[in-house]
């Protein structure tokens, strides 16, 4: 999007909220809705000067009399205003007078002038931490105290007492720098609910466009430049990954996502662990970095949550746009994603000595430029960087909560980042990734646009379809051409890819054509492409064309072929499908609509005799299901047919379609028959058995001489005899002096209770939850054997839940809910009189009716 387009979009978004950009009357930018903020934030960060146009007048309402006085004193000291109204007038008068602004700027101390000039070089908005990093880098140090003391209120909040805030404190107080949000890192936290760290957007600082204009008009050459650190050199062999490796790995993770058509998310919105495990298995050389690259792809907008927010779907357009950027720009954007990486929830509130992790990462990356070109001991380097720059990104726990800051020490956070992410990103070279020496990595040259010119070909395509990639010679198009290949390995200077049918298929699915892919490979290969590659790629592309799946289609169904042909003649863009169907872009207004993405209407009603009728209109799902399992037995009445089912019409799709459309319950016997006819269950067996029957059968069965011949118990009074052991049991009973009868006695109850079906025992919680959710969806009853949940108190008075007595009962499941992350089943008894809340982890066995 061009910058003018962005600003136009911003103007429209603001106008939609009744805000005129030219006459801005918003209080703080954070008051805008998310869309408008996104447009604002979308204009930041691409390196080119950005102008948002935030005017100071909009903040008058947020300032108290003391602050207004300070601002007026700064902008227009000659006015000597006393009242609030007069102070506002004096400030506005100065802002609208280039002469008064020039006078004000001329009086600025060197630190303030350098800070404002830095912002003006970037437009009128910049992340505040960049200003602090710049000021520290050119050798400025923070004053000893906050302006106005620690009790003064700014924009209704108290300023945090830290080195960073003291550095730009007067500029903040006097509105020369305008904060984006009161949640910014510059303000202290007053209450518990304010303890969430600020986001990079919160920390943006603006200057009034009139001040920016005055700064440019009264430009002064800066006398300050970055002062490199002088540190002792150590003898060590340091190495860092090539920055191109970061982009190759990012592309490979995107390829994995494309091949798996998305990434599943947990309920909290994090990438689920099985995805990371699968990626690690498919590409072991990524060594667990796939999580970072997935986060980066989300940050780049190349992966977006679908409408259900359970899956991340690849955005091919965003990915293609990203791939057209110069490699240095791609690298910078990935680095920005690293800086803005979201912390896991448990890490957000853990205080580790840095004011905020986004800012600390930003500060650490920019301060690396202060290091000398030779290898230095890691601890020495970090200590020196801390003294010069990194301490501005740290704060003591006391200062966060308004207390007096205590002495700062180098937090372990920085060393962890240097040894981990910064090395992986190629920004830091390490001595064998050990805790020894470090130096600046090749990534810094990429960030500063100092990449060496490319003089050779990037690829070498070999007859065995292997592609050798020279990392130094890589360019965006060659990188895009590699989307048609799978990465096998990456080392310091080269990488090896393999072209396969699957990789070509994946590339074609992203919208590349086989011809384009071959042309790109040919363009960047140092030798002519092997002839067999042309023929194979062309053949693979041809095979793809023979089979297609189109999602989201609308089919019109007519009574006859002639009606369909007449219908097509009236509909623009309609094409014939089969004899009676037409493929159309949209359903005509007059047509009766069946929408298959919503729950179907229940139109199949079972009769008492096991036949069923179609009531109301029938969609394709109902008709296909019926065609696969039933025959017409009388007008409008169908019955299940063994022959139809055995012919194979009853499959997963038709079964699901049928069950979803049944009004009342399918008789259990018919459902069992369907399962047997379709081969899902084995046919039933009929065989004679021998029963051991006695009032004390269970007690007798414990005798060692009888136990070995007995099988399952039907009840305490009846047990099955093992096949072939009848004679032996009879002999054992005789040996015990018992006479054996040959006829069953009617006065003994053979079976005590009848279960709905055998209980499935020993399932894990996830599996049980799945079965229960299916039962709920299919409106089926369940029989459960479970421990009731018992709540007791610990000796400290806290409630403690544990397993209570075992209960077995038939229930109607209603829903599955969660308490924290523990799943519970809500159910009612079959009579509907009592409700149950059962902890799914406490279920011992279950059966679906």
């Amino acid at each position, binding site marked *: 999007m061009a910058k003018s387009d962005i600003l136009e979009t911003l103007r429209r978004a603001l106008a939609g909220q009744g805000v005129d950009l030219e006459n801005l009357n918003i209080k703080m930018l954070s008051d805008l809705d998310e869309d408008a903020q996104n447009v604002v934030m979308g204009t930041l960060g691409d390196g080119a000067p950005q102008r948002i146009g935030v005017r100071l007048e909009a903040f008058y309402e947020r300032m108290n009399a003391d602050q207004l006085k300070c601002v007026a004193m700064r902008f227009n000291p000659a006015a000597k205003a006393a009242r609030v109204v007069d102070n506002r007038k004096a400030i506005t008068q100065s802002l609208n007078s280039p002469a008064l602004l020039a006078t004000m700027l001329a009086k600025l101390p060197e630190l303030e002038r350098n800070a404002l000039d830095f912002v003006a070089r970037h437009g009128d908005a910049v992340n505040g931490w960049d200003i602090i990093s710049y000021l520290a880098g050119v050798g400025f140090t923070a004053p000893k105290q906050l302006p106005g003391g620690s009790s003064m209120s700014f924009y209704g909040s108290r300023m945090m007492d830290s080195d960073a805030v003291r550095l730009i404190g007067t500029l903040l107080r006097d509105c020369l720098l305008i904060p984006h949000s009161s949640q910014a890192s510059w303000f202290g936290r007053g209450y518990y609910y304010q303890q969430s760290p600020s986001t990079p957007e919160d920390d943006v600082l603006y200057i009034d466009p009139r001040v920016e204009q005055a700064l440019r008009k009264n430009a002064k050459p800066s006398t300050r430049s970055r002062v490199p650190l002088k540190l002792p050199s150590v003898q060590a062999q340091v190495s860092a990954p090539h920055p191109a490796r970061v982009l190759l790995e990012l592309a490979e993770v995107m390829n994995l996502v494309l091949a798996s058509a998305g990434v599943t998310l947990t309920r909290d919105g994090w990438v689920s662990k099985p995805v990371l495990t699968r990626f690690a298995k498919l590409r072991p050389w990524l060594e667990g970095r796939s999580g970072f690259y997935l986060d980066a792809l989300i940050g780049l907008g190349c992966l977006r949550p679908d409408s259900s927010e359970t899956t991340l779907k690849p955005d091919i357009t965003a990915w293609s746009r990203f791939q057209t950027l110069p490699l240095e720009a791609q690298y910078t954007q990935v680095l920005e994603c690293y800086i803005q990486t979201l912390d896991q929830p448990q890490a957000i509130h853990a205080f580790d000595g840095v004011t905020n992790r986004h800012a600390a990462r930003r500060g650490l990356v920019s301060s690396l430029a202060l290091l000398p070109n030779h290898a230095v001991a890691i601890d020495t380097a970090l200590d020196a960087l801390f003294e010069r720059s990194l301490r501005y990104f740290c704060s003591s726990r006391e200062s966060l909560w308004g207390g007096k800051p205590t002495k700062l020490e180098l937090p372990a956070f920085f060393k962890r980042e240097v040894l981990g992410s910064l090395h992986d990103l190629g920004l830091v070279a390490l001595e064998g990734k050990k805790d020894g020496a470090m130096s600046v990595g090749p990534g810094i040259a990429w960030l500063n646009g100092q990449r060496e010119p490319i003089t050779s070909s990037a690829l070498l395509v070999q007859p065995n379809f292997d592609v050798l990639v020279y990392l130094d010679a890589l360019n965006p198009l060659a990188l895009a051409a590699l989307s048609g290949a799978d990465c096998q390995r990456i080392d310091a200077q080269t990488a090896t890819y393999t072209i396969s*049918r*699957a990789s070509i*298929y994946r590339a074609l*699915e992203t919208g590349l054509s086989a011809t384009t892919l071959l042309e790109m490979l040919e363009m960047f290969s140092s030798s002519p492409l092997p002839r067999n590659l042309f023929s194979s790629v062309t053949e693979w592309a041809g*095979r*793809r*064309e*023979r*089979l*297609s*799946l*189109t*999602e*989201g*289609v*609308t*089919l*019109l*169904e*007519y*009574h*006859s072929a002639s*009606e369909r042909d007449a*219908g097509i003649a009236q509909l623009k863009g309609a094409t014939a*499908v*089969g004899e009676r*169907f037409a*493929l*159309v*872009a949209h*359903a*005509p207004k*007059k*047509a*009766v*609509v*069946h*929408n*298959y*993405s919503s729950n179907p209407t229940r139109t199949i009603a079972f009769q008492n005799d096991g036949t069923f009728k179609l009531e109301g*209109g*029938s*969609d*394709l799902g109902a*008709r*296909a299901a*019926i*065609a*696969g399992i039933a025959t017409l037995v009388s007008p409008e009445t169908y019955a299940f047919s063994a*022959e*139809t089912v*055995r*012919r*194979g019409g009853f*499959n*997963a*799709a*038709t079964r*699901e*379609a049928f069950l979803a459309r049944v009004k009342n319950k399918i008789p259990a016997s018919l459902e069992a028959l369907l399962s047997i006819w379709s081969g899902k269950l084995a046919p039933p067996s009929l065989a004679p058995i021998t029963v051991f029957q006695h009032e004390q059968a269970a007690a007798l069965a414990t005798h060692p001489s009888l136990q070995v011949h007995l099988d399952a118990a039907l009840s305490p009074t009846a047990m099955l005899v093992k096949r072939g052991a009848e004679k032996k049991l009879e002999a054992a009973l005789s040996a015990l002096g018992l006479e054996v009868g040959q006829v069953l006695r009617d006065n003994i109850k053979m079976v005590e209770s009848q279960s709905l079906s055998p209980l499935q025992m020993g399932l894990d919680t996830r599996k049980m939850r799945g079965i229960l959710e299916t039962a709920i969806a299919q409106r089926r009853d369940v029989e459960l054997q479970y421990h009731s949940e018992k709540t007791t108190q610990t000796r400290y008075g806290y409630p403690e839940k544990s397993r209570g007595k075992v209960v077995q009962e038939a229930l109607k499941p209603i829903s599955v809910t969660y308490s924290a992350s523990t799943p519970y089943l809500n159910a009612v008894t079959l009579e509907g009189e009592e409700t149950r809340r059962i902890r799914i982890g406490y279920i011992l066995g279950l059966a679906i009716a």
Partner: protein
Amino acid sequence: MPRAKKTPEPSSSANAILEPAPPSGTALAHQNLALLEVADAADLQSLLLDPRVKSFVLSAVSPTQAVVLPQHSKALLEALKKAGHTPKVRVHG
């Protein structure tokens, strides 16, 4: 004497749509379906004889086209890929 075979041979035509069709003069619109298309009729027949693929196909609507419920399109895609096919995936419109 050879025993009579009880189980009929699997048939790809088992997935054909039966009546009732909509009454004369009316049109039924079936929205948000997935449409599986192949180059020739033999390809569809062989696909519908493959139990891995057939499970997710609702019904054939022409010798070379079959409809799939939207909730099964992802599983069908996976099944096709597992069976060695490289289907072209499109979104209508």
